[in-house]
């Protein structure tokens, strides 16, 4: 895996058309303030702050196909939609607008294929077909990034509820570890190499 093709930088570059300067630029104090409210919103089951109910249903449905719920929990259980609602808060108008434009365009495509515009009302097979058609777009790349970020960021941002994302990949968020860390170094110690 090369740094050049797979680095964060090139990821951002691939979505640069969605948000010209950069995707999702935030300042920490603003985000932390938003996080506190997001945590509260989780507890209250409150309304979304940025997303409309329709947008929330759509982005939730898209993220649920990117990381589906199958034999293990997925994006939906991890609360990815709350993460998106959190990080797209105040100051994110331009990026949010790009996402909204992308969604509207996507819904137009859906309407052409299925007669009705709502992604979340399609069945899973139909959803996957539609996503397959937009896989290479900055819109999809941005929703994918937000989905994965929401799955695997700190829960204080609204996603990764109960560390569902960390559990999925086998990451244990401890403050400290001691050797051996895995199979091969344990084996190395045992053999006295």
């Amino acid at each position: 895996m090369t740094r050049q093709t797979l680095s964060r930088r090139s990821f951002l570059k691939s979505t640069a058309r969605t948000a010209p300067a950069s995707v999702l630029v935030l300042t920490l104090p603003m985000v932390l303030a938003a996080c506190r409210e997001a945590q509260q919103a989780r507890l209250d089951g409150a309304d979304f702050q940025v997303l409309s109910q329709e947008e929330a249903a759509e982005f939730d449905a898209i993220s649920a196909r990117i990381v589906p719920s199958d034999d293990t929990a997925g994006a939906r259980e991890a609360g990815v939609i709350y993460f998106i609602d959190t990080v797209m808060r105040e100051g994110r108008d331009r990026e949010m607008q790009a996402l909204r434009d992308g969604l509207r365009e996507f819904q137009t495509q859906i309407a052409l294929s299925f007669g009705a515009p709502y992604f979340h009302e399609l069945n899973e097979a139909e959803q996957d077909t539609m996503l397959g058609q937009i896989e290479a777009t900055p819109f999809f790349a941005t929703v994918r990034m937000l989905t994965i970020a929401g799955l695997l960021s700190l829960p204080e941002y609204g996603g990764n509820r109960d560390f569902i994302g960390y559990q999925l990949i086998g990451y244990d968020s401890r403050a400290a570890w001691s050797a051996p860390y895995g199979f091969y170094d344990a084996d190395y110690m045992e053999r006295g190499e």
Partner: protein
Amino acid sequence: MAQAAISYPTRDEVDFVVVGSGASGGIVARELAAAGHSVVVLEQGPHLQAADFRHDEWAYDFNNELTWGTSKGNPQTFRKTENDVAELRETVCGYAHNVGGSSVHFSGNFWRFRPIDFMEASVRGRIPGTTFSDWPIRYEDLEPYYTRVDWEVGVSGLQGPWDPPRSREYPCPPMPVKGSDVLLERAAKQMGLTAYPAPVAILSQPHNGRPGCIHCGFCNGYGCEVDAKSSSMAAMIPQALASGNCELRTGCTVARVETDDGGRVNEVVYFDGDGVEQAQRTRAAVLCANGAETPRLLLLSESSRFPDGLANSSGKVGKNLMFNGSCSSSGLFEEPVNAWKSIPTTRVVHDYYELDPNLGFYGGGGIDGRHPSRGAPMLFGLLSGARTGTPSWGSEYKRNLAYQFSHIASFDGHTTSLPVESNNITLDPNYTDDFGRAAIRCTYMDHVDDLATMAWFLERTNELMEMAGATNIQGGYPENGQEGNVHLLGTCRMGDDPNESVVDATNRAHDVPNLFMVDGSSLVTGGRGQPTMTIMALAFRTADLINQAAQRNEI
């Protein structure tokens, strides 16, 4: 710790202004202040400390909380050649804006340069199209200072079979080996190579009042939450402040270095945290701003006396930028490797430090074991769908992601870059920052030998992966040339000839007697991809020589 809160009025002359508090600036400040000089350190960023750091990928990796780019008011542009118009990029020359600079979030790989690095041009001969040169100093000149870094900053390791001679053992034993490096070590052995403990600027046990590493895994890209990483922030700045002679001014962005009628530095102009222009009067200045910002500041400091920029009669300020090359192979293993725990790497293969000249190109480097996303979960999630032939979303993506995070390891090559004048830092004619300072414009295209070296190392890392028993091996290197890096080397190079270099063998500007530069910009060659140890050793040496010169009244 109790900080002596000394404060110097800007209108009063201090002995030294140090620009930048990173790998070199922290050391220079501590050494000059400890010798009794009055020192003002100007740092752009905030004074974050251990308690401020968190395992927060969203903040650090994706929102550049430490490494400000264009969107945080630090615009940079990039072009491959001098014939192109440079484009605005989020980050090109990456570095951290905080006390301690990039030494706070670096990987802490602390290979010393070897004797050959200082005289390779005369051993190998000139290389057309490059300014490949010997250093004006030798390994022996720097060895005592490498040892001071080992002991005073804090390095863990074990003397390896081909390591350069050292006057004193490492203060801390090597870090416990990781599974990824067991795989590297076993594969290396099968190939007749030797993997040995990687020297790191991370404490394996308590040293100098700081604790040993707790192997949390959020290391490269993150600030250490317990001060076990030997950053300037953790190891040097507290001592500089405790001397009672050093004032650390944070949030201060330097605009110009001013000179008097005699051509000597007399004040450093900067914007304070409120954006108000200030000027600190000083008897001398030491620029430790890094290999992009130091040349930028010199170019910004042009005047009628220094029309091409301060200390730039040679025209070499900003030239000869070197990034170091890299390659990486990753593969999957049957059992959990868990390379996401602990520090980035614990073993290094140095058998290929100097490649055979008969290959037809110049190069060399080292190989170490890593986790391909530096152990960071979110970054891995974003990258893992990018493995060739695997979907980037859906059930199969999710299954792969779940399995691979703990079962993956990478072997990375770190390689040479040749100095080329057309690789450089200049002032961008079209973009400025919030203070009206011209943006950094980076022009860079890897030399053909550097690309050949990366390609050669990729073959070796792929072989090592295969030998280690990995499946689904994938690798690459920046074959179209790098478009940015965090190693910023060579842009105010040392040398004896004032026509070919910017600073002399003591890191004093050839053109300005009371101006010194020491950071990545000083390096004549870039080593094998781990420059900070050498930058820190040079900083100790420069400070030592400045203190000696000051005693003789020769600043």
